């Protein structure tokens, strides 16, 4: 998927679809905290990063990945990386 041409809402929906398809996570609020609210463990967050990278054809640095703690934050980060 080409992030550059995606609207923000479209990108967030695509992120949620990755979370639903791979980890069975549904009804995720845009600002829900992956750790505190969704209780996603660290291995699953690493796996989510891998799936998102594959889905959107990007590579996220480990330092940046630590900030992927909500759908909002993830969408912003992906937009930034895609330029």
């Amino acid at each position, binding site marked *: 998927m080409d992030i550059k041409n995606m609207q923000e809402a479209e990108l967030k929906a695509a992120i949620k679809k990755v979370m639903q398809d*791979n980890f*069975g996570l549904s009804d995720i609020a845009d600002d829900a905290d992956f750790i505190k609210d969704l209780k996603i463990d660290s291995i*699953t967050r*690493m796996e989510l990063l891998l799936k998102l990278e*594959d889905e959107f054809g990007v590579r996220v640095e480990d330092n940046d990945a630590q900030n992927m703690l909500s759908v909002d934050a993830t969408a912003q980060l992906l937009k930034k990386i895609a330029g």
Partner: protein
Amino acid sequence: MASKIVVTGLGWSTPFGCDLDQAFDALFNGKTATFRTQNINLDGLYCQVSAQIPRNEAIFPFEKWQKELPGNKASMFTIFGLEAAERALLDAKLIDQEGGYVDQNLKIGVVVGSGIGGLEDHFNTSQVILEKGANRVSAFYVPAALINLLPGHIAIRHKIKGPNQSQVAACSTGAIAIADGARMIVEGRCDIMVVGAGEASIGRLGIAGFCALRALASGYNDNPQQASRPFDKKRSGFVMGEGAGILILESEESAKRRGAKIYCEYLGAGLSNDAYHMTSPCADGAGAIAAISDALYWSKKTPNQVQYINAHATSTGLGDAAEMSAIKFIFGDCIEKNSFAVSSIKGAIGHMLGAAGSVEAVATILSLHKQKLLPTINLEEPDEFAYHNDKLINLVPNNGIEASLDCVMSTSFGFGGHNVALVFGRY
């Protein structure tokens, strides 16, 4: 120290489903689960036959486990084992619902192994590295493939905080896990043990590996239902199966205290090693003789007190012959007196490798409990070695029969020369 150990719960995942009675009835009625392998590319391999658990919700709750452990978090051998363990815990009334926790005051542990573990995870992950690069490996790969994550997941799901470990002993894994679990109760460390094994190695790598050893059945791709034929002259190797078998072993005191249903008494195990060859058994069955004799010793039984052996009988030439010569050496007099039977369920559900010993232990215990012997299917012309002084051993050919059983044995032998015999008695 426990005076007696009893069996208070059973569970299995088989190609005939996970319900104890339903799968037992399928075995009793001589049904077979060996078919052409589905959904796996086996191009170029001589054996296309296996006994898969059909990917069908009516047979196994795949969706339930995909929800519980989504996204390849757990390997299939673990999922088969988790379902069998959950069913055994429910059967023993140690949990009252799926995903339930055991009473935290109980002294309970887990010894559950696998022969090979996440073999297909290794294969699939290697493919990812070759095709996409080493940094594309799943974070779930290592924990999914590890054999000890099967007992680990059982502990997590049911909050079982006692001793927890895995056994690895090829095709005798499940049986060794049972023997080792029992020792935890004998020592007094635990009152209750969840024991057994799971296996899921039917894949391109697993089938290719055993094809390379020429261990799998040849010549039956067009009539796969006849491919697994223990003791039969036309057998040509084993058929790979998959699944899991789990038992709940418990001290008699604990079982009585809980008012638990008791299937039978676990009398003891015999253990030995061939110390001979990586894959071949000693032709004279010396290792098997040692394990069976050891089992009788620890069980305080004489050969004439054993009415039935659920044989390892993989349907390979060397293995079947070695086992039969051991059985004839020890039980010769019983064979002549007609009071003795030997059968193998591998004709029906193939060889589940590491899980075979525990699935067959479940079948043996159900035989004892129901007083019904399971048949050896695809038996048309028994090999010469099935005769003792011109008398054919009762191999329970093709149809199950009613029987009067007090004491039964299940044997398991694995690559590496690992030999195990388990003995169960009527309670």
